[in-house]
């Protein structure tokens, strides 16, 4: 046997958008009829990408399309990508939770997947009983768990509470116990989702250490999905970047992280007017984020229109943080004014984003003559997200509680 642990061939997965369950009887019949005639499924169109910001006519979305890659035994592979790039879908298929729409995965060795810690924990049962139950759900035999019981209890640090129902545990203890069970699973292939985003810093370090031990020390294959680039660089030697359901990059971890960070600074959001107003108004808005941290640029392309001529006006764009408060307002110089002569006019506004912390942001747009007379005002009209950190070597976490912008500062001695 070759030393390929996992081989993914032409893997695709389609999801249906919208509400499942309404009108599906007729659709099911139609599908079934197409199948018995040997025709293609009329509702699956190949080629649609998973572009979440724009609307599409088809309500089938390809969460993964035509993915091919191989993973060698003993590799620690980081799977990275934006939200909605298909990481979770890939993990779900690898963990056999859901089946692919087309393609196949072959491999050898027992797979243990950790998409969540503490699956199947029963609040009424004691810690000990839950270790056995959870272990069995993850695929361990009873005697295997018995052999490792002391090790698991020790790792979780809950020896004193072993015979207490887990519903009386603190959330930290609960998570520690759950991770401890999973970490002691013996398997050739370990699949880990971002379960490490739990517990305190000390425990996170312990988990990362345990995973490093698994991949480097024991020579097992590890697939690790994370948004934490440091963790990926620490743990993995290879990386796979997924972009909108397609394979963006396969290679060593450092290049993969670099590819991810350079490709990702573009997010686009668009808004089209459907309100049919006669007074001056925005008829379309589009925002693009470009450049690299810490100096990024937000470009807003917008169009305005009105039915008849109106006095000149000016625009204001406000940027709001994840807590809903306005961080700053962009008010371009009044002259040139926005003119209204009954025709649609296009404009572009560039806003510098210096030292913005990673996270989601919203934009509101205002159009008017003075503070007292506004033509149009649309709240939360566009959304963009910043993924990269403004400082590469900062270990202190970014949080809106400590401000949306980092201060450019130096310590002088």
């Amino acid at each position, binding site marked *: 046997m070759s030393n390929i642990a996992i081989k993914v061939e032409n893997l695709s997965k389609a999801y249906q958008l919208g509400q499942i369950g309404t009108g599906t009887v007729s659709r099911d019949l139609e599908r079934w009829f197409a199948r018995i005639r040997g025709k293609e499924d009329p509702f699956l169109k190949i080629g649609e990408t998973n572009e979440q910001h724009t609307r599409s006519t088809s309500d089938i979305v390809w969460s993964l399309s035509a993915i091919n890659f191989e993973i060698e035994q003993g590799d620690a592979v980081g799977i990275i990508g934006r939200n909605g790039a298909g990481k979770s879908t890939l993990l779900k298929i690898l963990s056999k939770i859901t*089946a692919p729409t087309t393609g196949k995965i*072959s491999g*050898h*060795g027992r797979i243990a997947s950790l998409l969540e810690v503490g*699956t199947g924990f029963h609040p009424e*049962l004691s810690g000990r009983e839950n270790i056995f139950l959870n272990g069995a759900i993850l695929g*361990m035999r009873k005697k*295997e768990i018995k052999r490792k019981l002391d090790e698991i209890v020790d790792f979780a640090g809950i020896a004193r509470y072993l015979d207490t129902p887990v519903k009386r545990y603190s959330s930290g203890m609960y998570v520690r116990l759950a991770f401890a069970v999973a970490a002691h699973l*013996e398997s050739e292939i370990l699949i880990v989702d971002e379960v490490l985003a739990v517990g305190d810093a000390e425990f996170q370090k312990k988990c990362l250490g345990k995973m490093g031990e698994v991949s480097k020390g024991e020579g097992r294959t590890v697939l690790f999905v994370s948004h934490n680039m440091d963790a990926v660089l620490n743990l993995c030697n290879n990386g796979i970047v997924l972009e909108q359901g397609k394979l963006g990059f396969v290679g060593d971890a450092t290049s993969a992280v670099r590819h991810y960070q350079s490709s990702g600074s573009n997010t686009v959001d668009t808004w089209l007017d459907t309100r049919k107003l006669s007074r001056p108004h925005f008829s379309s808005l589009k925002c693009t984020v470009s450049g690299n941290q810490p100096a990024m640029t937000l470009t807003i392309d917008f169009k305005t229109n009105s039915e008849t001529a109106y006095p000149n006006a000016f625009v204001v764009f406000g940027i709001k943080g994840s807590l809903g408060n306005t961080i700053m307002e962009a008010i371009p110089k009044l002259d040139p004014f926005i003119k209204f002569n009954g025709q649609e006019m296009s404009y572009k506004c560039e806003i510098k984003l210096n030292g913005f912390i990673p996270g989601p942001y919203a934009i509101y747009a205002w159009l008017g003559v003075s503070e007292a007379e506004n033509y149009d005002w649309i709240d939360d009209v566009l959304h963009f997200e910043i993924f990269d950190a403004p400082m590469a070597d900062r270990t202190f976490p970014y949080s809106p509680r400590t401000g949306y912008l980092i201060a450019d500062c130096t310590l002088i001695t």
Partner: protein
Amino acid sequence: MNKTQENWEIVPANNLFDLKLGEVWAYRDLLVLLVRRDFVSFYKQTILGPLWFFIQPLFTTIIFTFIFGNLAGISTDKLPKPLFYMAGITAWNYFADCLTKTSSVFKDNAPIFGKVYFPRLIMPLSIVVSNLVRFGVQLVLFFIFMAYYATNGAHFEPSWAILLFPLVVVLMALLGLGLGMIISAMTTKYRDLSFLISFGVQLLMYATTVIYPLSAAVEKYPKYAWLIKINPMTTLIETFRYGFLGKGTFSWDALSYTTISTFVILLLGIVVFNKVEKNFVDTV
């Protein structure tokens, strides 16, 4: 753990008849632990504890005795009324519990199924076995009733058909499992069925010989008795009563018919369950 490097493959569709029994066997410890969980968590933080297993059949028997036995005066085949009802209720409850719990297995376990893979069949199997434990406990109550009436000189005697008891239990379990799997597979897409099941089981009880003997139904409605006879559960309950209490309608033809229909339903259940199991996470 076995260190053999088994090869595996993940493909879009399942073989419909592949039960993956080998895999189920490998997860047998999980089955045992799930049954234990159901049993232990049932009476945790209750005062009466496992006594609750007795209370439901006991009170149902008392109420049936008053309403159907005394008030409506439905025949009980000359058996002591409480004994007659308890036999029916104990057996029926086992089937009904297997059916209702299995029919919501995908919905109830969606959080677990969505995060971890194990042979899905383990869950319905654990339900059937958990209920078997419960059935065993309730059977003890039934035996206590039998002993009480026997010492008080009531006229009944177990017949040779008591030897068929294991077969009756297995058939009830498989019938509940099969029907439950069919419904569970369909409820992942169409939730309507989960509403149907809650009162459907209740209605089905009246189409089964739980509160009346088959002989009475045949006597009173000779034209429509076939409706009750085609229900496989009727034969099972009649055989159960005939075995333990010596009264009831028993025929080999009916038993063969029930056995065959049970296996057909079970097979159908397995096919639809297998078809749904791989992708239900996306729709449930």
